[in-house]
């Protein structure tokens, strides 16, 4: 298959179509391929019409407008396959009933706890990631400032050391050449700041991915609740 999208967008499209294919199981292969080819063609047209944002923004907006893979696929299945799906679901209900009978509420609450814990852990990792990135940027710029001062007026540090009566500022092997230490500090500090900025920039994509996963989960939960309400 030709790649009609930029690399990152292509991966997201491939993932979307793969999920859709999973939901089309039970259909014959030719029909499956035709549906997937048509949806791919639709995504391409819609993606090209979407002008706002970068590649990932555009492709995510395109897929959101199209609908979830499960929904798009489910609506394409014939009635016989839908019935098959219902049978599969009823098996799931039997299994969950069995689990509830034997393990009762603690398991259910535990399950909810696991999901909440996973989400919280993921969010914690995300926060730690951004905190690290910000600290890299801030400390990078502070160290760069120190390095610059060491280059421009190295005497300041030696004066401070002399005034304090001890070596507050130590330049290791460059103790007597603070300017060299300043240049090295500046280079390392700039690298640290650049790493922090790179982390923040790539964090934008990670955050977007997290939001995408969160939205998918919330959609699922919303559907489960609305199905439950319809039954009652």
């Amino acid at each position, binding site marked *: 298959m*030709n790649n*009609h999208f930029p690399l990152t967008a292509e991966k997201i499209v491939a993932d979307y179509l793969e999920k859709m294919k999973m939901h089309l199981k039970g259909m014959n292969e030719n029909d499956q391929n*035709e*549906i997937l*080819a*048509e*949806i*791919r*063609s*639709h995504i*391409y*047209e*819609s993606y*090209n*019409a979407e002008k706002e944002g970068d590649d990932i923004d555009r492709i995510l907006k395109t897929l959101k*407008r*199209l*609908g979830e893979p499960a*929904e*798009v696929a489910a*609506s*394409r299945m014939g009635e016989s396959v839908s019935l098959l799906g219902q049978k599969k679901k009823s098996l799931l209900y039997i299994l969950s009933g069995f689990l509830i009978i034997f393990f009762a509420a603690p398991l259910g609450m535990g399950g909810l706890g696991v999901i909440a814990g996973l989400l919280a852990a993921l969010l914690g990792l995300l926060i730690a990631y951004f905190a690290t990135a910000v600290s890299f940027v801030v400390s990078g710029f502070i160290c760069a400032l120190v390095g610059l001062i060491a280059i421009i007026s190295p005497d300041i540090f030696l004066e401070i050391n002399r005034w304090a009566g001890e070596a507050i500022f130590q330049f290791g092997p460059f103790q007597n050449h603070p300017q060299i230490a300043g240049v090295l500090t500046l280079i390392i500090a700039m690298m640290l700041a650049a790493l922090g900025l790179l982390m923040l920039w790539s964090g934008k994509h990670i955050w977007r991915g997290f939001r995408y996963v969160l939205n998918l989960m919330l959609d699922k939960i919303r559907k489960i609740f*609305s199905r439950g*309400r*319809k039954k009652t």
Partner: protein
Amino acid sequence: MAEEIDNKVTQLRKGILELAIMAALYHKTHYGYSLVRNLAGSGSVELKEGTIYPILARLAREGLVHSEWMESSQGPPRKYYSLSTGGRSVFESLQTEFQSLVQLVASASTGQTEEGQAKTTKKITVRRNKDE
């Protein structure tokens, strides 16, 4: 309550969307995305783009639309849809029926049934005669 309204809107849309798709195909052949643009551009109805494909598939199963893959000058091939001869006549009948239904809803919502309209006309005529 809001959910009930959502369900009713969904049900209402399903039938009308099929008619809207047939209406668009009555005048022109379309591929999926151009059909979505056509429908989205004609009003303020928000629709998930994926919803048109099952309708197109059903219309094709019923023999009301034909489809054909055609190469595109850019990007992957497109699947074009057009109404079959049978589809055209079905659409014409459905359109007439739909217009009658729209009129029915309009007159019912203003509280003017045929009977009511007749009475109103009669009253106006009597008043005119008195004036004369």
